């Protein structure tokens, strides 16, 4: 106990990561009926957590080696588990991202969620999420990480299904939980295999393991792929993509925080966390690269057909996550982490802006919002455009830098197909982002004034009611916009920070990029290609949606089957549904249920029935006819005698 107070880093960590849990407990148990107090408690705790995280970020920068605190948690036979904190640059950075964005989102929610009947509950779950996520980030062992990873999933489930009266919301929550669970089981199995084969789940120990030669590459590949299953589930990689778009049923701040900026990035985070371990297995890296690429392209195509504001960002999140996975799998460790950081910023920004629109117009449809005069909301409109530019990789916004870094990493791969895929993805990203922006700016058929007036009235009406609340939403948005603008320029200092301590990481990174150090194309050309991919996308979007007299249909509408394919998410949902319905529900479940009732249970009942029938049958022996009974008696005695004689 004393150790906590002696060590400021530990103290800050413990305080920062535990407060949200306390706040959740307090809210759930005591202040459920006092929403104001609940939100204050939660926000206070997360602010403290954010401050602590920033302090730690600074401390870690100054430290020569990572901080590591451990205490025994449980042991069973020769399996020992510790509970601990492992603060290295990566986790400190991630902790900061989580804490800060969670903090901003919670402040934002003060406005967004005001008046909701589940206000207290909302903040309780937010706190739960913050606690779990922060603990996951700084977990010192893979198992501890997994534990909080699951809790994060739980929080996600709760928050997606926040509007539980809505069937689609509860359905989406369930879907999210079960689909990530599919990946998690793989992760879990990976951890178990690591426990059995390696015996130590400490993250630094794992990362140093490949160098020592205690474990074979085959084992690493197997374990790494299993762990990667978890990544696939949590980061919505192919084939477990579809839960994430559905997860947008939750309140928008939740989408901003969990389903774009932080939680879904946890998968990527885990990948980068044990990156050296992964990197020791080229096969695993190749598979991860392929999956990342497929995910990115699939999600981008899906984003091109939807009109739902949040859906677009959701698909974009998936595709960006795919991009990060690509980057990491290609050996671009820093690029991946950097994109994670910038993405957290601008994606949260995009969602929060969308949230303001949604809050204002009570719809998710970009066409309706545009028609009703969405562009008149200056703050969100400007900020969303900033975010979209960053997403499209237009300089000087943060996205540009990180995307360039990723393209650089892809460029280092021997096979140029990855680079072209990356570029194509960048092009699609820009296209669908600006498709959305232009929908908002230049709605089809112009703004319907009548509605607008009405909306203005109601808007004004609202202003009177909670003017402060509007600013509770606007300020975080503006902060994030600023961050988006600025963050890109911090690339080099961040790189220095992240790569400082990680000898293993550096080693692994070079090993993974391996043979083609010089790249397929030159550096300058790459920059131009990157920018132009984005710009081409924006221009195409302008031609189709922005310019006067544009058709506003998109080129895809000329290919209805393709449109349909994209709109139906490549029939992945249909496939899952079909699988669940035929294989599970009407297949195994109904067969087993029938088996249970008819054969197993029926067998038992049958035995009872036979027993009773046996009783009836035997009772005929006891006929009322005396002499038949006597006959049996005599016969048995006689036969017994014969038996003894013979």
């Amino acid at each position, binding site marked *: 106990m004393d150790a906590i107070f002696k060590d400021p880093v530990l103290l800050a960590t413990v305080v920062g990561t535990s407060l949200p849990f306390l706040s959740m407990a307090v809210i759930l148990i005591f202040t459920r009926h006092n929403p104001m107090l609940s939100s204050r408690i939660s926000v206070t705790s997360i602010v403290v957590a954010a401050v602590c995280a920033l302090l730690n970020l600074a401390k870690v920068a100054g430290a020569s080696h990572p901080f590591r605190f451990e205490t025994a948690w449980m042991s069973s036979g020769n399996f020992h588990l510790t509970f601990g904190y492992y603060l290295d640059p990566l986790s400190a950075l991630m902790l900061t991202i989580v804490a800060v964005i969670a903090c901003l989102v919670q402040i934002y929610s003060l406005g967004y969620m005001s008046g909701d009947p589940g206000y207290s509950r909302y903040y309780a779950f937010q706190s739960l999420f913050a606690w779990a996520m922060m603990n996951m980030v700084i977990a010192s062992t893979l198992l501890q990480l997994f534990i909080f990873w699951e809790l994060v999933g739980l929080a996600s489930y709760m928050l997606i299904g926040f509007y539980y009266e809505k069937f689609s919301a509860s359905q989406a929550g369930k879907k999210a939980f079960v689909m990530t669970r599919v990946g998690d089981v793989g992760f879990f199995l990976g951890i178990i295999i690591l426990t059995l084969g390696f015996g130590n789940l400490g993250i630094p120990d794992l990362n140093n393991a490949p160098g020592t030669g205690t474990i074979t590459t085959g084992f690493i590949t197997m374990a790494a792929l299993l762990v990667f299953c978890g990544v696939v589930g949590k980061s919505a990689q192919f084939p477990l993509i579809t839960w994430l778009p559905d997860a947008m049923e939750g309140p928008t701040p939740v989408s901003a925080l969990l389903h774009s900026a932080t939680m879904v990035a946890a998968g990527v985070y885990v990948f980068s966390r044990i990156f050296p371990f992964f990197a020791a297995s080229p096969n695993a890296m190749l598979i991860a690269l392929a999956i990342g690429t497929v995910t990115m392209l699939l999600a981008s195509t899906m984003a091109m057909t939807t009109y739902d504001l949040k859906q677009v960002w959701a698909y974009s999140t998936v595709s960006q996550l795919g991009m990060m996975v690509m980057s990491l799998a290609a050996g671009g460790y820093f690029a991946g982490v950097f994109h994670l950081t910038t993405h957290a910023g601008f994606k949260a920004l995009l969602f929060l802006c969308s949230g303001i629109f949604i809050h204002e117009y009570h719809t998710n449809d970009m066409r309706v919002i545009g028609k009703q005069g969405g562009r008149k909301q200056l703050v969100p409109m400007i900020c969303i455009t900033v975010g979209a530019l960053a997403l499209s990789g237009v300089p000087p916004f943060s996205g540009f830098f990180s995307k360039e870094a990723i393209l650089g990493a892809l460029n280092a791969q021997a096979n140029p197909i990855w680079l072209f895929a990356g570029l194509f993805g960048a092009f699609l990203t820009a296209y669908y982002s600006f498709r959305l922006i232009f929908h908002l700016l230049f709605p089809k058929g112009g703004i319907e004034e009548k509605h607008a007036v009405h909306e203005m009235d109601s808007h004004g009406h609202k202003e009177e009611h909670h003017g402060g609340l509007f600013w509770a939403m606007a300020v975080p948005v503006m902060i994030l916009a600023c961050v988006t603008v600025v963050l890109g320029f911090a690339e080099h200092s961040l790189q220095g920070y992240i790569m400082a301590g990680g000898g293993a990481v550096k080693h692994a990174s070079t090993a993974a990029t391996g043979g083609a150090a010089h790249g397929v194309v030159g550096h300058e050309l790459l920059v131009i290609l990157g920018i132009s991919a984005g710009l081409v996308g924006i221009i195409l979007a302008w031609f189709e949606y922005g310019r006067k007299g544009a058709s506003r249909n998109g080129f895809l509408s000329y290919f209805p089957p393709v449109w349909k394919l994209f709109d139906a998410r490549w029939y992945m949902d249909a496939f899952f549904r079909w699988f669940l319905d035929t294989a599970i529900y009407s297949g195994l479940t109904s067969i087993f249920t029938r088996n249970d009732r008819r054969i197993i249970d029926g067998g038992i009942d049958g035995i009872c029935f036979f027993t009773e029938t046996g009783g009836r049958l035997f*009772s005929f022996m*006891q*006929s*009322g*006819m*005396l*002499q038949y009974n*006597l*006959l049996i008696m*005599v016969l048995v005695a006689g036969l017994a005698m014969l038996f003894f004689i013979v």
Partner: protein
Amino acid sequence: MNSLNTYLIISAFLFSIGLVGVLQRRNLIGMLISVELMLNGANLNFMAFNRFLTPEPVVGQIIALAIMGLAAAEAAIGLSIILALYRKMHSINIEQAQRLKG
């Protein structure tokens, strides 16, 4: 001829024929008669063993006497029970007495 086995076979025959009677006579008194035959079979056994095997030839006789006494008592009881049944059922046909079953 005058060997133990002859007597034993005769007693076995008496016993078995008594059994036949018990098993197929419908008249209760007929059954009682058959039972008496069975008892006589057993009695004959005792007497035969008594004559051919045992060290004290008195014992078998005493047993036979006792059995006779018991048989008389048994007949009395049996007949009275049959009579009682006849008063209630107006029949001494055992095949009509099968209300209790199952």
